[in-house]
């Protein structure tokens, strides 16, 4: 087990004009589960591959457990990894696959046998040890890949979208199983995904990446509740955060949304008279059929019952919003409903830079 220090990592692929990672720095504590989250092409996989030694950076440094590994080959880094495509060795039985890393490390045979058995029991692979991977289902193959990675006692466990090739139901069950396994192991883990629900549910800290840079690094709930910019708010959450153009009144006490007014969060006192971008999550909007004081009128466009909630697409002052209503709420398209915004759940962003506004 070890901590990871990544400093000013720059990587440009040969023939590429843009930096795959652009001066990325990241600290990962010993035993911490860090998720690199972002859309495809954001540099998250490149960053992971540089930690693994499968790509070499143009400049910057990576230290694992205080040891510089920036340009060390992968087999000298004491890592283990779960690949997106499983990457099990198809010509070898499950038993050999799981014990592969230990065999390479010249661990005694009885020790290998014991650890393989332990990992197989943990991942319910016991009956399949003498099968070839071709005779396993996709989910079982992924279990083999995880077993192969966890027997290693590695300093760092790397995972590259390990759940993305599983079907939806399996992904959900295996996700919680994976979380428990990694928690019990206590190994420092770096996990790459483009699925924001995976990132929120698994990570101790989440690094949201965009265009080769880390847009926000923090606790999953912080990242969800207080996105650092419009991109993070739009990327995390299902449905994504709603954004509306608004103006702060001259006394700083209210937000002006077209012809309607809202109570402004207290941090806006220092931004009186400015145009801002208002961000609010669907579940933080209260939906009512009768007007209450401070409410904003909205026109219903689409009604989508989701079982536990009803998802409404509504229009306010030319902006389309997604809001959540309790399952008992009744409305229909074209009707007018009333939305209540709690000031402390509103986030405000600069309209030009899209960055969150902080109280001065």
């Amino acid at each position: 087990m070890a901590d990871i220090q990544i400093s000013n990592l720059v990587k440009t692929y040969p023939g590429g004009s843009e930096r795959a990672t652009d001066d990325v720095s990241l600290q990962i504590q010993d035993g911490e589960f860090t998720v690199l989250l972002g859309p495809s092409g954001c540099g998250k996989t490149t960053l992971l591959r540089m930690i693994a030694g499968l790509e070499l950076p143009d400049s910057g440094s990576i230290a694992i457990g205080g040891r510089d590994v920036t340009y060390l080959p992968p087999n000298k880094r004491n890592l283990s990894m779960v690949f997106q495509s499983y990457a099990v060795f198809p010509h070898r039985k499950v038993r050999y696959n799981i014990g592969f890393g230990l065999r390479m490390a010249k661990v005694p045979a009885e020790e290998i046998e014991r650890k393989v058995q332990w990992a197989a029991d943990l991942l319910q692979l016991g009956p399949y040890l003498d099968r070839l991977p071709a005779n396993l289902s996709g989910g079982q193959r992924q279990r083999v890949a995880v077993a192969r990675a966890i027997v290693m006692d590695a300093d760092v466990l790397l995972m590259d979208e390990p759940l993305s090739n599983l079907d939806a139901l399996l992904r959900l069950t295996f996700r919680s199983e994976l979380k428990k396994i990694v928690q019990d192991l206590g190994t420092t883990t770096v996990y790459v995904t483009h699925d924001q629900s995976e990132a929120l549910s698994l990570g101790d800290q989440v690094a949201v990446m965009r265009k080769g840079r880390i847009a926000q690094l923090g606790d999953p709930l912080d990242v969800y509740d207080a996105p650092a910019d419009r991109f993070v708010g739009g990327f995390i959450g299902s449905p994504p955060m709603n954004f509306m153009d608004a103006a702060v009144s001259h006394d700083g006490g209210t937000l002006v949304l077209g012809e309607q007014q809202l109570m402004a969060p207290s941090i806006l006192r220092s931004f009186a008279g400015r145009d801002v971008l208002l961000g609010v999550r669907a579940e933080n909007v209260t939906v009512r059929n009768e007007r209450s004081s401070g409410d904003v009128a909205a026109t219903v466009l689409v009604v989508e019952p989701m079982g536990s909630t009803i998802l409404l697409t509504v229009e306010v002052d030319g902006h389309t919003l997604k809001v959540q209503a309790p399952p008992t709420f009744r409305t229909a398209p074209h009707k007018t409903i009333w939305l209540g915004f709690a000031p402390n759940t509103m986030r405000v962003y600069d309209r030009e830079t899209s960055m969150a506004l902080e109280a001065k």
Partner: protein
Amino acid sequence: MSTPVDTTPIARQKRNRFLLQAACIAVSLFMLIPIYLISLAALSTRDSLNQFPLSLLPTNLSVETLNAFLGSTGIFGALGNSLIVGLGTLLFAAIIGVPAGYAIARYSFKGKDPYQLFLLFTRALPIVVLSVPLARLFLTVDIYDTTYAVILLHTALALPTTILISASVFLSVPIDVEEAARLFGCTPLGAFGRVVLPMALPGLAAASIFTFVMSWNEVLGASILTLDHRTLPAQVLSSLSDSPLAYRFAGGFALVIPSIIFIALMRRYLTNMWGSTIR
């Protein structure tokens, strides 16, 4: 009341299936009939070959003709030479061609595309054009009229296909399996030997079939580069014009059989590789 069922599409499907089957049989017969005829002739007595009409069924089997052919001077040695040249070519082509194919598959380097094109240029030159200067060169370095000379020529001829086939074979081995081996403690060479090579073996076996059969059948270069140490086809060719009909059939038979046996042995690996897509 139900609407009448239009059975035309399924009838058409049945007809197409029948036509496909017929085409398969026709192609197979096209390949098999000559082999059958030559085997029949080689295994018949000399007299029955001169009968009219010729019997198309194996009624008069004997190994007399074949024995006479194998007993004639130089044939046994030539058979040995052919085997040495074929296997030697296989070895040399593998030693040079497999790493080259791996490099093309895995690394991007300057001049990769022109390099791949240049590879094929060896095959663009007629063998005669290659062989005559080579014969001069081999005379000066004193390996003329040896199996080495023929091995070197055949290796050069086989390399383009060996390299390009093994490159495509290595491309079909997923790179992340190799990366996994590296991450779990293998050196680059170790990852190649433990993971990539075993996975590529079926395809490489296929490439070796082409190499061996090419070498076995090549006659022009072998004839030019040797006098007393001829390979089988060169030997048969040189004595073809002044030999009886039976001898020619026996020679043809002796030429066909080893490559068929070799293909049959390697076929297991072929179906292994393509079995999942073609079956």
